[in-house]
């Protein structure tokens, strides 16, 4: 395992907004297949960091290497096609389209690139329904996304990510605003996804983090404060002071 090159590597990644160093010299590496959580107080630079990875924000300096390719100058839409999917922190679905049409747009984009399978109504339907079934929304396929409950909209977001069949799925605070029952379902779902894809998770809910993450990175003021297994992080004094509140 040690010889395998990581799926994602960032080197000295920086992003400044005016005088603020939102992400400061972050060197990070993520092996293929891992479920990794990023935690840290508000304003620690977590969302900016993953935005640099998925291309929504351009880096001030440093590099991002995905699957061996340098991608820090690649536009976001091409990174998605290279296998990086991002689900939004603030739910961002097509509110006027049906749940199915939402997912179908993700499937459509992937099928355009899939020369072997090709784009057909049949493939769209099958794979779209497949993604909805995996998150448990199959029976809501025909409903307009804007009319779904908040929890279901979050799941729809994830279904769109899944429909892209990404190698790396970035989940930005996926359980924010969900009820306890919904969170339990969500944990089970991310476990399933984690069996096939690499997952990078930003999360505030420590129960979710401890249940899912194989390794955890703690960020503070744009830097990596600590990194390790859940047990190591729990035992880390600096982390407890900065974040877990003793």
């Amino acid at each position: 395992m040690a010889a395998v090159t990581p799926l994602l590597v960032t080197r000295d990644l920086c992003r400044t907004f005016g005088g603020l160093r939102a992400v400061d010299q972050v060197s990070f590496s993520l092996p293929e297949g891992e479920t990794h959580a990023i935690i840290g107080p508000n304003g620690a630079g977590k969302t900016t960091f993953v935005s640099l990875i998925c291309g929504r924000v351009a880096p001030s300096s440093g590099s991002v290497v995905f699957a061996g390719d340098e991608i820090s100058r690649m536009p976001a839409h091409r990174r998605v096609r290279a296998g990086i999917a991002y689900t939004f922190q603030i739910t961002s679905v097509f509110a006027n389209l049906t749940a199915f049409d939402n997912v179908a747009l993700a499937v459509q984009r992937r099928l355009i690139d899939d020369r072997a399978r090709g784009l057909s109504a049949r493939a769209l339907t099958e794979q779209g329904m497949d993604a909805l079934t995996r998150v448990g929304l199959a029976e809501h396929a025909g409903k307009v996304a804007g009319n779904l409950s908040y929890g279901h909209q979050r799941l729809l977001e994830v279904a769109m990510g899944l429909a892209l069949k990404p190698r790396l799925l970035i989940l930005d605070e996926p359980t924010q605003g969900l009820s306890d029952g919904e969170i339990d379902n969500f944990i089970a779902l991310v476990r399933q996804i984690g069996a096939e894809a690499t997952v990078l998770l930003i999360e505030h809910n420590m129960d979710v983090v401890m249940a899912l993450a194989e390794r955890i990175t703690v960020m503070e003021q744009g830097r990596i404060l600590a990194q390790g297994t859940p047990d190591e992080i729990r035992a880390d004094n600096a982390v407890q002071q900065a974040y877990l509140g003793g």
Partner: protein
Amino acid sequence: MPGRAEGGVTRAMANRIKLTPSAKSLALHAGVVLLLLALNFLLPEYHRGVFARVLVLAVFAMGYNLAFGYTGLLSLGHAMFFAAGLYGAGLTVYHLEWSVWPAFAAGLAAGTGLALVVGFLALRTTGVAFMIVTLMFAQVFYLTTLYFTTYTRGEEGLVLPQSSRVLAFPGGALNLSDPSTRYLVALTLFTLVLTVILFLVRAPFGRSLVAIRENDERMRMLGYNVFANKLASVVLSGLFCAASGAAYAVLFGYVGSGFAAIQYSILPLLWVLVGGAATTLGPLIGTLFMFYVIDTASSYTTAHLLVVGLVLIGVILFFPKGIAGTVRGRWLPWLP
């Protein structure tokens, strides 16, 4: 049993998600075209002339609708694409004595090329800035037609001689100044563009445009090149508008700067809003409706714009999504 239920849902979806128009909507559109064909033989001379003009301008509205209705790009400069087609065809007929086919092609090329350049520059902006940039480009185009008044005759315009307005075929020729021929040629162009749009909005490209209108950042993070899709939409929109302009020049034989002025950027917006944005038949309905409102009102009073304004307020009150849009919203959800 859940397995079977899922299978049922999948089958139901398979019926619902189609990348081509449904049989019902194909039948409706074929019906509309047949009705328009019949009107050529039923309408009195004056109204046949009005309908021919409306059919050509409805193509302009359909082109505008592609950018505005489906892609959500509120352009205030589409007169330049219409006028590029108009001048591309008109000037080559008038000055270079080209025949209708190559002149029509020149009109299409002018409009499409202009749309490519303007789209490339204007699409760097969004929202209000996009409105202003397109408006400014259209003003530049309008003033250019006035500047070269030696060739364009400005507002006074050029009248294309009847002898030049002949559409040659291997088997014969069509005289475009004949009212019936003119109507049928206009209907042919209208049908062609309507069919393309009908299939386009169901196809993956059309779905992408609507989704870009709804949430372009989401589309980008699904892997779509939003800029390229918008540009393709503007270019195609420019092509349809230019086709309308070029057809107008050769069918009605008049080419003037008035068609490049600001009101011809506002009119397609109005036609589409009245008829129903992002509907296939809305542009025709809106163009026809506005034409007759203005025509009827101005035959009774010189204050016809007052009547037009009142009618528009009424339409907005009772048909907030335009005529076809409201019909779709209330009664016929399958309407494309």
